């Protein structure tokens, strides 16, 4: 029953993207990272949905919006399990996962309180040094920010 409802919602999308399997609790964060808060077309989102694979999950459906890899990979830091489903004319045209990018620019915060990026208007930039157990090295202060410390701007 639950499954059928989800399917119905998905199929109701004529053109757009479904972002599925978002760790529950990170849906709003994903919306913020993708700058969907100011998006003007229809968006559906849900949290605490039942998932066979993960127990609970979050899901976002965006009408008439498709994402470039570079853009979507930003969410991999908080939602590495996310699946992307592109829909055109009610048909699924592409399904893909997300991969952690080599560089992370402009949306994550440096852990170092003495870093220039935490004091002046300087966009953050990190080099990902470990993708399995996320570690990012700040381009400016050279300190490492780890997965559990990642905060988003």
């Amino acid at each position, binding site marked *: 029953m639950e499954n059928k409802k989800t399917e119905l919602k998905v199929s109701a999308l004529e053109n757009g993207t479904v972002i599925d399997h978002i760790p529950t609790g990170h849906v709003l964060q994903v919306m913020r990272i993708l700058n969907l808060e100011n998006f003007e077309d229809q968006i559906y989102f849900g949290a605490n949905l039942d998932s066979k694979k993960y127990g609970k999950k979050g899901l976002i459906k965006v009408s008439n919006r498709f994402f470039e890899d570079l853009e979507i990979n930003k969410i991999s830091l908080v939602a590495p399990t996310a699946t992307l489903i592109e829909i055109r004319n009610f048909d699924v045209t592409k399904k893909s996962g997300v991969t952690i990018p080599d560089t992370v620019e402009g949306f994550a915060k440096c852990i170092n309180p*003495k870093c*220039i990026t935490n004091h*002046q*208007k*300087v966009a953050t930039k990190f080099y990902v040094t470990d993708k399995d157990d996320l570690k990012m090295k700040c381009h*400016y*202060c*050279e300190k490492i920010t780890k997965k559990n410390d990642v905060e988003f701007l």
Partner: protein
Amino acid sequence: MKNRSLISINDYSKEEILHILKIAEEFEANPRQKILENHVIASLFFEPSTRTRLSFESAIMQLGGKVIGFTDASSSSVKKGESLRDTIETISLYSDLIVMRHPLEGSSRFASELNDTPVINAGDGANQHPTQCLLDLYSIMQTQNTLDGLDIALVGDLKYGRTVHSLVIALSMFKNTRFHLVSPFELKLPRSIKDFIIANGHTYEQYTDISQVIEKTDILYMTRIQQERFADQLEYERVKNSYILENSMLENSRDNLRILHPMPRVNEIDENVDTNEKAHYFQQAQNGVFVRQALLASILGLR
């Protein structure tokens, strides 16, 4: 290396480092050459550091260059809330090269990417101080005639000491360094840097007693142990006198042993060491001028 900023010692390859050291030899032989007569260098000290500033300014002036700038942020527009971006963008228009020290980490990297004016990092918080590293390498080369296959003893605060970390990383570019790490238990070299030593094919041993290394090292690099680094003040009281070098301790050391210190010292090298021919820390400070001259000449395309 024309127009290239120096922000972190890792910005330069081994060959580039050796190139700078080579040019520094020329300035050691002849430090007064008027090659910067037509140049204006900005010296921006957003926090005071008298030694580093005077060393840079001496380097510039001995080469005939002019210096503009400030010696601490309180005497500049920074105090009125000007952003670092605006300060750098403006001063770039007045100068050929910027030397800067700033308390925030990453500030020099940021400044170096704003426009084409090259920046030399004279210290950004606890992050990098690459000219200190170059002068340390120069002093080792000057006294040992090589940077390969040396026994290097590092003594004191190896945990927080930025100078020590940079030196280890730079020496790891060379061959077969044997590091002898002498520190109180609380101030040992971080694991990540020890892993770096091994990953680059070098070796290290750890000690808590300075006398264990004096007879088997080529370089004795002393650093200050600061009281505030200790969580346990009793521990500080217990160890503070065991990291002091006295002249009598050097009796059975190697003939080629030289003692270095980034200065200023407090009491970790007794003054009775100063007249020993193995004391090299004042020469080391002077080397800072030659190395900075070499950098300026190289970045301005004059060497």
